[in-house]
């Protein structure tokens, strides 16, 4: 445990920690561009120069391990400041000053550093014609990534990412000296399963994600910590949203699961969270769905359910542990219904964690491990159809996207034989059969926990209230309607998270133990009563509701 002094502050860090991390532990920011905590250190950008007492030359902080008794001067060293200023001048000599039209603006390390540390009196000495790469200003190098080589500062983060993390070695340097540029190896398309991360690690706007480009300025986005719903690996993400519209997922650091990476499949699920086909509770009256209020729903539905001859419930591995638990207790224990969780294998997905081991998942759902942990019966597609064809009675579908065979003709035929209660968000054929159609919001408006494939319980936070009507603007962006100026994103919609609906039903039915007002309370009950969740504390799973996104935190964490 070496103890060292940085800018007069003494800090003790683990052996092998480099000076950037040590300085961060002391609350001092040393600027960097090419350094990335999960990639090898190359020391190319030369911006992290610091003065170390007893060494005649400046050293790069990223490649210098902390040593006992080391005295480091970062901001207090005039030499280091001068050197950094010179490196900034070198970098900006050929970097286009197109921040206003660059989509990286607001989350660009180069921009941030030049705003923060460049002295106000500093002017460049560069008067030559700037280096450009004609034809490389807006080049689609793969399905998701657009390259602008003029903006590249040659930090090689993207190259190292493809070499060390995604292991495709798809990106490489070509040419040399000042005409060095990034290209795909052999000119093949950049079809990396994690190609979005190459744009994430790019400190400038040289690589940007096609789907997000020019959709929203980075500083408008709010980040809410959540869990990727793509598979059971459970990558930690930020839902980045503005005015109740989700614009993108970005990876949230978790060394045990996804380090700071996210696969393209998960990343591009973000857009799907904006779909909200059903906005109000609806009830079928003489063959037609008619709008109802939640106030009418609870008493009527609870009476109906209590009177049901037999009850079959199709839960889903997309639901949180709290929702699965409530469903099991309410429908299974109190109403003596039969409850199953359909699961099916999805495409195999994999993710590299902070120890650079691959985590794999063939689950198509984020929480099948949670369902198993709660001891719920799982069925495959055929089993589900058999289950639906069983004794006629009332059926409750908690999530139509639980299994694709719910949309099959066999299943729909079976469902058409008896009363049906369906909770749904996206358009689904079961809505045409449902007696009760109740809207649920997306992950972005829900709160709860998932169990990942490694067995850890992970919390996700709600980003915004359920959205109201949304429409597509001319640019293709999802945007809420603007009925009033006072409330530019419109009133919230009436979709309610399933746990809210289930606990309200419990209150209506007089099951006082399940009448709980927050996922935290439900979780606490689970932790008390379920052996498999014993000892897990909600607060310790803690995520703050609002955090700064990873991109912003590249300076500090």
């Amino acid at each position, binding site marked *: 445990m070496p103890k060292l002094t940085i800018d007069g502050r003494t800090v003790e860090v683990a052996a092998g920690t480099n000076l950037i991390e040590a300085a961060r532990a002391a609350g001092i920011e040393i600027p960097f561009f090419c350094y990335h905590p999960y990639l090898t*250190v*190359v*020391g*190319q*950008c*030369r*911006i992290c*120069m610091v003065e170390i007492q007893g060494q005649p*030359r*400046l*050293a*790069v902080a990223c*490649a210098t391990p902390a040593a006992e008794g080391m005295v480091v001067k970062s901001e207090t060293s005039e030499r280091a400041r*001068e*050197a950094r200023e*010179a*490196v900034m001048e*070198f*970098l900006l*000599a*050929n970097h286009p000053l197109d921040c206003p039209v660059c989509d990286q603006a607001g989350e660009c390390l180069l921009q941030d550093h030049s705003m923060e540390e460049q002295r106000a009196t500093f002017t460049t*000495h*560069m*008067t*030559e*014609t700037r*280096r450009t790469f004609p034809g490389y200003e*807006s080049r*689609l190098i793969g399905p998701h990534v*657009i390259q602008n080589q003029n903006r590249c*500062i*040659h930090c*090689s983060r993207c190259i190292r990412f493809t070499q060390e993390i995604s292991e495709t070695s798809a990106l*490489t*340097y070509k*040419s*040399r*000296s*000042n*005409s*060095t540029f990034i290209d795909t190896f052999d000119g093949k398309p950049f079809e990396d399963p994690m190609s979005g991360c190459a744009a994430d690690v790019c400190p400038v706007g040289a690589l940007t994600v*096609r789907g997000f*480009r020019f959709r929203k300025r980075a500083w408008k986005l709010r980040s809410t910590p959540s869990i990727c719903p793509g598979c059971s690996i459970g990558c930690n993400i930020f839902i980045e949203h503005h005015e109740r519209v989700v614009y993108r997922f970005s990876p949230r650091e978790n060394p045990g699961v996804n380090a700071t990476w996210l696969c393209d499949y998960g990343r591009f699920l973000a857009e799907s969270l904006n779909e909200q086909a059903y906005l109000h509770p609806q009830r079928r009256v003489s063959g037609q769905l008619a709008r109802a209020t939640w106030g009418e729903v609870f008493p009527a539905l609870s009476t109906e359910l209590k009177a049901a001859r037999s009850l079959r419930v199709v839960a889903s591995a997309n639901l949180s542990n709290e929702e699965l638990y409530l469903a099991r207790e309410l429908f299974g224990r109190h109403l003596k219904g039969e409850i199953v969780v359909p699961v099916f294998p999805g495409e195999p997905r994999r993710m590299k964690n902070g120890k650079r081991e691959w985590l794999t998942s063939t689950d198509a759902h984020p929480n099948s491990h949670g369902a198993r942990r709660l001891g719920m019966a799982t069925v495959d597609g055929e089993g589900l159809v058999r289950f639906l064809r069983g004794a006629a009675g009332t059926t409750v579908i908690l999530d139509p996207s639980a299994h694709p065979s719910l949309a099959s003709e066999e299943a729909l035929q079976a469902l058409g034989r008896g009363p049906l209660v369906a909770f749904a968000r996206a358009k689904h054929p079961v809505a045409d059969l449902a007696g009760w159609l109740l809207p649920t919001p997306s992950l972005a408006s829900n709160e709860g926990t998932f169990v990942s494939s490694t067995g850890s319980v992970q919390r996700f936070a709600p980003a915004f209230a359920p959205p109201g009507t949304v429409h597509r603007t001319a640019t293709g962006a999802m945007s809420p309607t603007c009925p009033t100026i006072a409330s530019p994103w419109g009133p919230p919609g009436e979709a309610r998270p399933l746990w809210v609906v289930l606990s309200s039903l419990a209150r209506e039915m007089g099951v006082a133990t399940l009448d709980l007002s927050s996922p935290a309370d439900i979780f606490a009950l689970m932790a008390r009563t379920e052996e498999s969740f014993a000892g897990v504390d909600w607060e310790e799973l803690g995520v703050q509701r609002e955090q700064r996104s990873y991109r912003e935190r590249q300076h500090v964490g």
Partner: protein
Amino acid sequence: MEAVLLRARGVPDSRAIATYLAAGGYEGWKKALAMAPDAVTREVTDSELRGRGGAGFPTGRKWSFVPKDHPGPRYLICNADESEPGTFKDREIIEHDPHQVIEGIAIASYAVGAKTAYIYIRGEFVRWARILEEAIEEARRAGFLGKNGLGSGFDLDVWVHRGAGAYICGEETALLESLEGKRGFPRLKPPFPAVVGAFGKPTVVNNVETLACVPHIMTRGAHWFASIGRPRNTGPKLFSVSGHVNRPGVYELPLGVTFREIIHEHCGGIRGGRKLKAFFPGGTSAPIMTAAEVDVQADFDACAQAGTMLGSGGVIVLDETVDMVEAAANVAHFYAHESCGQCTPCREGADWCKDILDRMVEGHARAADPETLLRICRFSSSGMTICPLGDAYALPISSMVNKFREEFDRRIGTATPLPQKKLPVLPWAGPRPGFGV
């Protein structure tokens, strides 16, 4: 001085192993095999042999850095990537006496415990790569190399590896990367190659000339070697002299000879009876020296004291007709082309210097140009870059600006402004399909 490294020059059929053996070749190798590896290293340390590639690091010390107890292979690499402008001494050695190098490689490999040695040779040296390959084959057939060489139980394989045309691959860590089949980017140090080198194993990288000295140290002893030259700057050195002299070529002289002797005695003075203006003492990477500094001794310490470096010993002589701005532009062009593009100051700075100097040569100098050049050079040298290429371009250019400032200022006095570029007015063709995505 008697010829040591170039003794075979002018001897008929000098490359053949028979000729080499007749002159006492491979005696050093036999002698080394009879000694303990540590004793060989000690002998080289005692000779005070310093690396001839440019940095002048003591060779014996470099060998002693290889960890003794390291399990697994180690490597010895002979750096024949001779690319420094004005340097052509290694080529001369290989041309006339390749076995001298191979014997040196064998002794060095034995001293550091390497069972595999590579000769990394500049890609353009096709002829010399073939010469080396033939010589290795001869030595192998004669039983000096290969399994159980000379019945000593020591195995050694020597391979020739041709570079692909990058100056930077003469830098030892870039050479290692290139040898491994990667892009020739210098590595961050530490760890040094003696600890983590080729393929992650301890590796010693020595210049051709350095290794060519080793057999002579073994046969004639460290004291004989140390008696040539000056203390701490011992042994014979090859100087490849080019430029405006009457007799350019490779000269073998003891270290410590003055540049006046080299230029005016050995090379027969300046061509056409003109006057000496300046000279590069060791390739263009060494800061330039003026005619007034011609009495400096050509060795590592004296050059360092004079604010320059002996480098590879490639003396480039410039006479009074040379325009320093054009000479600086020439130097800048080389380094702007040869920068590997890895670290910021060198990649951006070398090209920037080139642009400024080109503009000055074209007659559009600006008042701030010399100061800008000095600023760029200052922040590209002394530890601002991973490898010494930053210093290699910055020090000569800044020395030229400093020592011949009046020539740069004269350019400013006679400068015309850059002609205004007329930007073409593009016809509006409507939105292009697929553009901007």
